[in-house]
């Protein structure tokens, strides 16, 4: 996983609540057996005027010029500003994979769906929760000034606006630690292998019907 320490980038506004995972990456692209390459099909149905196909060349497809990420002022955006309940719907990790592959490193929204929120951290993508009023203010500022950039500093848990003003944000300490160090959860959990074995033996003794049945 990529480390996340400090990031500065252009903010793009997705001014819509309940952005679901089918919107983020439509089902036909889930047929891939790889983790990468989803970026060109991020928000496929909103971004293009035709229906996308997996493994197809996207370069000649007609663009929806009204869609935010197709506007030149948001070219190269890496901070996504969104409304409440971002990422609702399925558990597909292809959603954070697509956002990350496109180039996003940070999402800022008033709330997220639980599974999406959790999946993002596993992929070096930082979902930040801010109060609705604060998010609303950011939308206003992004719309008002072209090239609007935000800096996100994970260690101090601060977002720094172009004017220098700072916004504090919360993040789970364990997730923060993993992001800053680019740590793989599995390796960390396996340090507790003896505890897992001890638990498992007790469970086998008290509920033997849970073991050695599916084989």
């Amino acid at each position, binding site marked *: 996983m990529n480390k996340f320490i400090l990031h500065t980038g252009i903010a793009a506004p997705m001014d*819509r*609540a*309940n952005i*679901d995972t*089918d*919107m983020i990456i*439509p*089902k*036909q692209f*889930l*047929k*891939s*057996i*790889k*983790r990468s390459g989803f970026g060109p099909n991020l928000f496929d*149905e909103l971004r293009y005027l035709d*229906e996308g196909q*997996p*493994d197809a060349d996207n370069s000649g497809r007609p663009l929806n010029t009204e869609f935010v990420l197709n506007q030149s002022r948001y070219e190269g955006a890496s901070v996504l500003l969104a*409304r*409440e*309940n971002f990422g*609702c*719907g*399925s*558990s*597909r*990790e292809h959603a*954070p994979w697509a956002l990350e592959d496109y180039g996003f490193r940070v999402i800022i929204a008033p*709330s*997220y*769906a*639980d*599974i999406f929120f*959790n*999946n993002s951290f*596993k*992929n070096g993508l930082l979902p930040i929760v801010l109060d609705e009023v604060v998010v609303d203010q950011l939308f206003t500022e992004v719309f008002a000034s072209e090239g609007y950039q935000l800096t996100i500093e994970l260690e101090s848990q601060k977002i720094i606006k172009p004017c220098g003003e700072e916004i504090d944000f919360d993040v*789970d*300490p*364990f997730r923060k630690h993993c992001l800053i160090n680019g740590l793989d*959860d*599995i390796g960390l*959990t*396996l340090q*507790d*292998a003896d*505890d*897992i074995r001890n*638990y*498992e033996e007790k*469970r086998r003794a008290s*509920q033997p*019907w*849970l*073991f*050695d*049945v*599916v*084989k």
Partner: protein
Amino acid sequence: MAGKTLYDKLWDSHVVKEREDGTALIYIDRQLLHEVTSPQAFEGLRLASRQPWRLDANLATPDHNVPTTKTERDVGIEGIVDPVSKIQVKTLDDNCDEFGIVEFKMQDKRQGIVHVVGPEQGATLPGMTIVCGDSHTATHGAFAALAHGVGTSEVEHVMATQCLIQRKMKNLLIKVDGELGAGITGKDVVLHVIGIIGTAGGNGCAMEFGGSAIRSMSMEGRMTMCNMAIEAGARVGMVAFDENTAEYVKGRPYAPKSDQWDQAVEYWNTLVSDEDAVFDKVVEVNAADIKPQVTWGTSPEMVVSVDSLVPKAEDESDPVKRSAIERALEYMGLEGGQKITDIQLDRVFIGSCTNSRIEDLRAAAAIVEGKQVASSLKQALVVPGSGLVKEQAEEEGLDKIFTAAGLEWREPGCSMCLAMNADKLGNGEHCASTSNRNFEGRQGYGGRTHLVSPAMAAAAAITGHFIDVNTL
């Protein structure tokens, strides 16, 4: 000290280790695997030279991509026309063979939608923790189990360690008391609940369904309700253990056998919320108020009773919600104020992990028996949830009732619920669907989904538009 909720009990009994930061290492008893969210997890194991921690905790079956026409299915994997789907199904077979995981392959009659197969085989048992790389894993909570969807990184994490790092959720009780009206099913109840609390209403919560209406509901109805907990934002849906649960589980292939059965039931009887348990939030619903539900928009919370009108955007004061209604009406091609019963349909889909079990098929068959599908419809599909559901339905003659009425009887899989196989809606087509999501493009590019119960979908197939199932 206050008593414990069902969720508290399930959580406490699976804590391997608590950490200082408030997270805990939670043991996972069962992982269900399918072809879409597992390939990258198996690849991760391979790259790190890791082996699955416990093979017998896993069970796999392909479901999302599999074709549902008999001609394609009879040929096997080589019969899958879409080359990308074929690779994904083949990859699951290869991975399960390589690592030694039990898989019900495409031509095994036990194959089906993971959330139908788990309970059917007794691979889903009360008191378990169950995960799967699919958000509708909440289904299994109907058995007083702690079940939720995970992403692919966590699929790999569970395969490698048999554990997950979790933070405890809040307790939410949805209490449905009273008697359900004629023709009202678990689907109508859960859609009604989502309409009340909204699609984010259960975020951060484990949602227990209780009350007298749930106690008298079948296991199929409870599975439908828990299945859609995620559409209200809750990763976990649950129902307490009772005699219905025991009766459903008994005799299933992977359920405890005679010598262990009594011991298991003795423990399972404790899997209920204590009388004095404290919930963070309680939502009370009067069962008698619930009418047949139909979604009109592009989020499951955009739902009304069949006798209602499509809402008008101008009646909403919140600007974010108003623009969501405007956008949904435009996408759905509907006018605010029009009658739900005036919506003309193009297709009907009866199936999915929400509603493809035997009780669902019986309810649909009872409506269409002796009648004919409306000539205005392009297609009406019935897709059983598993090979065993299909076999049972055929023994009862339900397939004949469907085909005589003009519905297509298919092979088991996820099918038109998410259109990863060939079954999909055309651009602009309206569909009465027993599935779980009405998101834009979910059932096909430009497709317009209306979520309903199996009986309501069957009634709509006969009339070509929505109608209260009780007035057909």
